[in-house]
């Protein structure tokens, strides 16, 4: 896998997570004041940095074949979860991910929550809301960076792709000061599900000792092949067409991303 594909895959996956984390931090900051949510965000980023610092070099010492089997299998299971949900959304069996709605719900909860601080944090609720959101979304970023990076022996390059995504989303978020609802998040999730599944398949099968026909070129068939299977599933699950705009996720739904 060349460097561009590695960086692009990690960038897309991490951009999705960064958009979700941004929504949570914005909801906390705009309703409870910015100080505590920003402290929470900083604390979560520090924890994530420690996790990457500890896991990155440790994973790098594992021999490549067992690493590919374990990491590939994890990535495959993880990717199939994304793909399964993305297909259900695109077929209208699950509501589309809507950052505006999530922002409104979290902001409403934050407004009604009680106040009170602890230690150096003036507002504990705002702190924990931002901390949990950034940490949980960030763990997925760390997982993607370490799996993609370790298998290729390029954790630094994968981290670069993740950092670019997080910085871009943060910069745009600071500019617009609103949830990034215009980001085609559902389409991105579909694409990321396809990529995670295809790369997970490639590496896990290589990890078993089997050899793909064409070696690395097999990815050129695996990615479009996975996409084709996913699109067939969407078509099959949609069933007979219903009147325009009656189902979430239908092509007639203006919010449909995929």
């Amino acid at each position, binding site marked *: 896998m060349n460097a561009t594909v590695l960086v692009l895959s990690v960038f897309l996956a991490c951009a999705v997570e960064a958009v979700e984390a941004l929504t949570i931090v914005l909801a906390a900051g705009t309703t409870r004041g910015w100080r505590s949510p920003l402290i929470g965000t900083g604390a979560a980023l520090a924890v994530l940095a420690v996790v990457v610092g500890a896991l990155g070099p440790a994973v790098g010492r594992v021999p490549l074949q067992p690493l590919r089997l374990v990491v590939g299998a994890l990535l495959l*299971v993880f990717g199939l979860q994304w793909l399964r*949900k993305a297909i259900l959304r695109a077929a209208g069996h699950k509501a589309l991910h809507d950052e505006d709605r999530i922002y409104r719900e979290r902001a409403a909860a934050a407004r009604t929550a009680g106040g009170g601080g602890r230690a150096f944090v003036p507002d504990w609720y705002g702190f924990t809301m931002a901390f949990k959101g950034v940490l949980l979304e960030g763990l997925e970023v760390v*997982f993607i960076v370490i799996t993609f990076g370790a298998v290729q022996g390029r954790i630094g390059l994968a981290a670069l792709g993740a950092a670019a995504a997080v910085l871009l989303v943060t910069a745009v978020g600071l500019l617009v000061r609103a949830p990034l609802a215009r980001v085609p998040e559902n389409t991105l999730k579909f694409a990321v599900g396809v990529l995670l599944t295809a790369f997970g398949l490639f590496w896990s099968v290589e990890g078993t000792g*089997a050899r793909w026909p064409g070696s690395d070129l097999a990815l050129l068939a695996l990615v479009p092949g996975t996409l084709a299977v996913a699109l067939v599933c969407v078509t099959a699950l949609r069933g007979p067409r219903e009147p325009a705009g009656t189902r979430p996720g239908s092509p007639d739904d203006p919010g449909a991303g995929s």
Partner: protein
Amino acid sequence: MNHVHNFLRFWYDFVIGDDWTVALCVALALGATALLTACHVAAWWLTPAAVVVVLAVSLRRATRSGGGTGDRTGGTGRPGGRG
């Protein structure tokens, strides 16, 4: 004890997710691929084929049970909800 349970629950949700049978089938397919490869049989096709079947079955089950997690609101029920 509650913290341990929550910690394990988090990792279960993180890695396994809504349908544990997907993870089980992937593990079995990879095990079978490794076994056949050790016997010098070309088995690279086995896991992709298993993935197509298990994905289709999992989706069919999810649509029959109303979205798998029962979540039709787009949220995942936790701040770090995946996918």
